[in-house]
């Protein structure tokens, strides 16, 4: 469905749209350039996919640019990503050179647009070096960190800090993820787009057909985790939890992972997951192409319970998506999942496979609780984690940077 304010108004209401218009009034005509490292796959691309057209409709001159790189560049940025999340990684001079050379190559193409923009939003570490490469910038530069960087590898953080410290502001998804930097650091949780293929209402037929395509039984309980095949998402822990059910309720487990072009580790983790599943016919492991949004939507809607047993998580948009579809979520007690999953209200937070198995059993035994929690979960997302709130906060931040960060900011 087209990303227009009128289409969103049907879901979020006229008051929410009015707030967007008010806060955008003083930003009319401002040029905003978002830069990330992939157009497909991953939460950042999904956010920009709706944010750009809405910013344009509100009168801003919004652009989305993507860093182009080779395998060595993406291996390095994956090291940054893992290092920021606290993994023990080795960052070599060669990797840094590959990173800087690639960004410098992109800078030749992007420099005129970036230096002329009123606001530049750099998403995650991949394009961060651009700041140094645009000496004649006239606008405000904002670094948006989508990663849980609460306990980063020091070498990685020290390098990245030198690249982002001179921005005008930064945005983190949670206070725990923020780091001391020499500029204001804002806390803005991400959100989902209710009109995206991943979240829009689907017909029963489409959901049924999807299950049939993957040989999943629509008449048995479906437990589902949707996420990249990444060790931080703990797919092995999910299989352990499923095995602890010992066949109870005749449930099925679906582990479906979308790949992203900037994630070279996915294949190795997928292999580990296949080994852990050990040929169990009740475990469906699906490697989905990056454009499988409607398939993911159908799998989430068909699920009885959605699991997101991450060991570390930025925000966990798959949790938000599941809640929007009235599903209780059993989530890892980490990162942004803690903001969304509230015990007995929207799902359960767990720390172990055993904890996940316990909560799954409890919920499967009480179908009325599943529907009650699911309804509350949807309302919670409607109120707090849809794209209108997210966009409003971006615009407010830009307005604040332009007008000065006082205690009060009058929109419009």
């Amino acid at each position, binding site marked *: 469905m087209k990303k227009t304010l009128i289409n969103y108004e049907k879901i979020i209401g006229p008051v929410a749209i009015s*707030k967007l218009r008010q*806060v955008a009034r003083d930003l009319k005509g401002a040029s905003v350039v978002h830069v990330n490292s992939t157009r497909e796959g991953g939460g950042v691309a999904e956010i920009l996919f709706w944010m750009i057209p809405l910013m344009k409709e509100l009168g801003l001159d919004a652009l989305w640019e993507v860093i182009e790189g080779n395998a060595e560049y993406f291996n390095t940025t994956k090291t940054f990503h893992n290092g920021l999340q606290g993994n023990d990684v080795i960052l070599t001079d060669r990797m840094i050179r590959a990173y800087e050379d690639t960004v410098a190559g992109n800078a030749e193409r992007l420099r005129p647009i970036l230096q002329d923009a009123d606001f530049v939003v750099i998403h995650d570490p991949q394009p961060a070096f651009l700041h140094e490469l645009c000496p004649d910038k006239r606008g405000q530069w904002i670094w948006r960190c989508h990663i849980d960087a609460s306990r980063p590898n020091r070498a990685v953080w020290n390098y990245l800090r030198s690249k982002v410290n001179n921005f005008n502001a930064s945005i983190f998804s949670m206070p*725990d993820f*923020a780091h001391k930097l020499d500029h204001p*650091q804002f806390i803005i949780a991400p959100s989902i787009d209710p009109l995206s293929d991943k979240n829009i209402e689907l017909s029963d037929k489409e959901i049924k057909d999807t299950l049939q395509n993957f040989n999943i039984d629509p008449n048995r309980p479906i437990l589902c985790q949707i996420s990249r095949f990444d060790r931080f998402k703990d797919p092995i822990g999910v299989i352990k939890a499923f095995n602890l059910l010992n066949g109870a309720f005749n449930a099925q487990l679906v582990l479906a992972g979308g790949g992203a072009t900037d994630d070279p580790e996915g294949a190795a983790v997928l292999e580990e997951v296949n080994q852990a599943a050990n040929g169990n016919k009740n475990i469906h492991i699906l490697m989905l192409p990056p454009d499988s949004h409607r398939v993911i939507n159908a799998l989430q809607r068909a699920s009885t319970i959605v699991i997101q047993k991450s060991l570390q998580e930025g925000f966990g948009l798959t949790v938000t998506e599941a809640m929007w579809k009235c599903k209780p979520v059993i989530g890892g007690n980490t990162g942004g999942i803690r903001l969304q999953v*509230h015990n007995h209200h*929207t799902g359960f937070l767990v720390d172990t496979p055993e904890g996940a198995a316990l909560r799954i059993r409890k919920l499967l035994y009480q179908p009325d609780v599943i529907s009650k929690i699911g309804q509350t979960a949807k309302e*919670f997302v409607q109120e707090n984690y849809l794209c209108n709130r997210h966009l409003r906060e971006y615009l*407010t931040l830009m307005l604040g940077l332009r007008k000065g960060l006082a205690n*009060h900011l009058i929109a419009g």
Partner: protein
Amino acid sequence: MSEYNDMGFKVKDCSLITRMAGVKEAMNLRELEERLRVCPDECLFHHFCETVIRPTFDYPDYTNDFALWAGSQLRDKILAERLSVLNPYKCKSVDELRQQVLDILEERLSETDHILWAPKNRAFQFLQAVTVVFETDIKLNRPYDFYEQLPNMSHGSIYYHFIEARRRTKWMVDDFTAWLSEFELEVKPLIKTLSEIDFYFLTLAELKNTLVAVTTEFFKEAKHEKNIN
């Protein structure tokens, strides 16, 4: 003629945008005390007064973030209770509030023989917020409009006009009271009732329900007696 009666009372809505307060996180009670001495006024205000407008489900066992952290992370219920009973709106200034908090923390530090620590990844993060103010379509011209429109006001409007106003206005009164005060004497009982609401210990939903209840009651009685509009 006042600003309100010239133009009517234009009801506003608001939301917060949160930022780090520039103070290092606190992992234990001693660090909390040290950071509280130097944190900005806005930070203290945020953790005491803006907690009601944040998205959460947990019923507030404790009324401010410091008490909540002391109770849930330091697992010090004595400290949590002492901090929780502090009502920031009874303080004449942020300095007075800060001093009261520091007194409680120092007292607690002197009572304990070891420093209490929060678990890993559960440090206290010092925040502050910018209040973003929006226009709404609601306008009040006479006291009866207040009764009619209260159910249509968002929690953001209730927070902005009934709670946040006390920080903003010279006399530390809420906007509704300031506006109603400019009308005839007949609304004085309503003003008195509003002033008696112990709002600091209510959620915004509870506060809205309370405002609707007392206003409904007042206009029901007033209609019987003098037909106030």
